[in-house]
């Protein structure tokens, strides 16, 4: 349960940032994960009144506020058109409708959780994290950054022409994934993310020719990541599932686009 001495609605990002510099203070987003931490906080900083709950779009990019809840992304038509529904696929297995109405994109990305479907999906796109002090950082770099007291303001997804697909493997329909896989195929490159290894998602980028022999690509790419065992699966099984998911996720794109996948 969330325990704190004070709860403040920040009136500006600057105020939120200032408050967040204290070690004992924390920013609350959807409180999905924070409430599980058995800790007494000083001040809980609420950034829900800073207009960070909008998805905006222009010709170049989508800009998703940190406080946009997962279900708003799941149901966002343009974002799903752009991703061929991959974004929805990456979100719809997460716990349940009500949960996704609570928890936010900012919270999911800032947490950089190992099990994160969300990070696995966004990391293969041409996406960026806008930090209040740290500026704009590519997602795959942000994923590797240490936790700090900066504030995640928004996620930017550049409308780079990509063909996207997402798959996950779960023991039970709404459980944490055993392995996640997102694939983005661009003009001449293919990017594959594997998450829940159970370490957090990371990417491999290759020239498009690498996946002409899909079986070989899936095997090599899966093998290039490291895996660990936990309650849900062994490292070895994860590696195998990663290979299967890579193959199937690329095939999803092939089914949609046929041979054009390579000729785009």
């Amino acid at each position, binding site marked *: 349960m969330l325990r704190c001495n004070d709860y403040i609605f920040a009136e500006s990002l600057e105020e939120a940032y200032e408050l967040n510099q204290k070690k004992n203070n924390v920013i609350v987003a959807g409180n999905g994960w924070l409430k599980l931490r058995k800790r007494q906080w000083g001040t809980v900083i609420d950034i829900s009144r800073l207009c960070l709950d909008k998805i905006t779009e222009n010709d170049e990019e989508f800009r998703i506020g940190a406080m946009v809840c997962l279900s708003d992304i799941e149901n966002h038509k343009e974002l799903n058109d752009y991703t061929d529904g991959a974004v929805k696929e990456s979100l719809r297995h997460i716990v349940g409708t009500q949960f996704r109405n609570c928890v936010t994109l900012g919270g999911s990305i800032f947490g950089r959780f190992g099990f994160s479907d969300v990070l696995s999906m966004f990391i293969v796109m041409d996406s960026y994290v806008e930090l209040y002090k740290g500026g704009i950082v590519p997602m795959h770099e942000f994923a590797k950054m240490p936790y700090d007291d900066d504030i995640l303001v928004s996620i930017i997804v550049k409308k780079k022409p990509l063909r996207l697909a997402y798959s996950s493997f779960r*023991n*039970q*329909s*709404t459980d*944490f994934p055993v392995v996640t896989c997102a694939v983005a195929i661009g003009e001449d490159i293919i990017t594959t993310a594997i998450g829940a290894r159970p370490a957090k998602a990371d990417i491999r980028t290759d020239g498009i020719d690498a996946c002409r022999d899909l079986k070989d690509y899936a095997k090599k790419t899966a093998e290039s990541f490291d895996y660990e065992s936990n*309650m849900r699966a062994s490292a070895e*099984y994860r590696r195998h*599932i990663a290979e*299967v998911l890579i193959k199937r996720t690329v095939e999803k794109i092939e089914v949609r686009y046929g041979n054009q996948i390579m000729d785009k």
Partner: protein
Amino acid sequence: MSESKAINKPIRKKDAMTLVTGKPVYCDDLAPKDCLIIKLLRSPHPHALIDDINTSIAEKVPGIEAIYTYKDVPNNRFTNAGQTYPEASPYDRLILEKRVRYVGDPVAIVAGENEKAVDKALKLIKVKYEVLEPVLDFRQAKDNEILVHPEDNWKSLCPVGADNKRNLCAHEVSENGDLEKAFSQCDAIVEETYHTQANQQAMMETFRAYATKDVYNRLTIVSATQVTFHVRRIVATALGIPKTDVRVIKPRIGGGFGAKQTAVMEVYPAFVTYMTGKNSKLVYTREETQTASSPRHEMEIKLKIGATKDGIIKAIDMYTLSNTGAYGEHGPTTVGLSGHKAIALYSRADAYRFVYDVVYTNIMAAGAYRGYGAPQGIFAVESAIDELAHKLDIDPARFREMNITKEGDVMPAYYGETANSCALDRCLDRVKEMIDWDNKYPARDMGNGKIRSVGMALALQGSCISNLDVGSVALKVNDDGFYSLMIGASDMGTGCDTILAQMAADCMCCDVDNIVVQGVDTDTSPYDSGSYASSTTYITGMAVVKTCAALTEKIKKYGALLMGCDEKDVDFNGKEVYRISNDEKISLKDIANSSMCNSSNALYASEGHASPVSPPPFMAGAVEIEIDTETGKVELIDYKAVVDCGTVINPNLARVQTEGGIGQGIGMALYEDINYNDNGGTRSNSFMQYKIPTRQDICPVEVDFESSYEPTGPFGAKSIGEIVINTPPPAIANAVYNAVGVRIRELPITSEKVYRGIKDED
């Protein structure tokens, strides 16, 4: 006789509309607002002695009322098992003890005005432990030099073969026929080891109870329990106070499935209120309900089963090792079902032997969970039956048809009872038809890396504990002739209040709405051993039938008195008592109202019932699955089930029982698994880490009934509550084999195990 208006009718549960509109009828909704909040400090070690415990700083937290340690509690050993006295489960507990026996064993009870104060105090209690080596592997527990219960005042009340100096909670050998000879006649023998994991009941309402003092200064406990009367005895024994001083009330409860057949936590609020004189309550978190509760016993079953080349089963030999954990609740009794129920499916075999050991270990104590040992044994037997059929190259459905218990058969493994009502053969026929067995067995390659297959399993359970369970009810006539039915059985959402009212309505020839049901309050309800062992319909139902007959006689007698005629000249049709010899009659309304004015005739009856037999319900379940051969993932396509529960009293409620039991069985089969770390701590400590099926995980389930008529049951009824959980694990395991030739003998049947099996074959 006119057709019954109440029996075999899909009548709504009496409390249905109250529940769907969210009325405050559960334990925590009813607790007084001024209850002290109780929480328990728990051991971080699987085995330790408390060297020193200092509560003085914690006691100074404002709002803290009391903190109790092992130094403050009575030295009366008791068991939390909700069983008839003298309990088969050993008296191996104290409310708190110097020795802690699993990660989560209570160390201190903290009571305070609010949760924050209590949480703070919990952190300020200083405990010094002498950490001892634990026994964590149940295969190493028997005769291990480390003893879980070395204490001298450990006590076993019944001859169950228990010996605390050997870590043995129970041991027994039972057999029939010449086993050696029977095996010597076999052409094919399967000898394998099967392992079933511990599971949580995972009812939505966690354990909870509150305690108050009533107007007579007696301790009153309102508890979410299935065993209201047993809780009274358990609390009185633990506290060392007379039973006169304890009253227990059961409100609506949010599911039980056997979990609440153990008084997991009632003693704590009882003790706090007893000591402080103040109202108190304890609501277990889900984490506590997952880690310090009463899950299914983990069992390892070594099974040998043999048949002739013609497909006749000759002999079954079973050894079950059951893990009761730190305490022995239901340890000596659950294990029996693994053999006595499972082996009895094939009673025509010449010989059987069933041996078991139940051992103590330093993990959370096990308890009662729907099926009560039968699911474990049935997983082993029904898997082995398929293995044997494959060895003999006989269709497993056909193999079953040739060997199953049939009506009139004596069942040696089932305490020598005779199957007086048994439609198992019809259940099997019908389920084959429903799943289209003959066309679908064994499997079809779908051509896309997917294989579809079918698998089946049979099941048997009991309808009560014979020669032990007691059900009694009382029925009285009120103004204008409506009835009050007082019961001691605990409706836990299953609908027994309604089912018993249906029976009473049928007996009294009236509408179900004319029967008001009340339960359970140990001060006013007639005694009932409780809602477990599938016994309520069968045992308490028979008490209803008897009570109605007794009340009918009283109504007739009083009607005759009012009409001034001989009581042999009258009969009762539900609305009036009428004379057989002429047209004179008097309405029930007039009789009822007259009985309340200048009358010495109480229109009230109460009867009890116990049974020398426990007629088994039977069931056949069949599943169609699709396996992704690349990942090993098992997807359920369809589940068909046919149940012989004797006469179906309420088809809707019987169907939902079946569907719900299958849902739980699917969880047990595919992923539910209580997982421990190396220190004996429970990893599956939440619904985040212990996954029960969601509605996306359950395939369409179709249920049908093939009714036999049980001569000893009310209206021919047997039981249904437990049998329904038994078929999914073996049916799915058998389907997996039929699809990819991989035999999973250790639950759960995870994708990874199936994948490894496929890979090992290659």
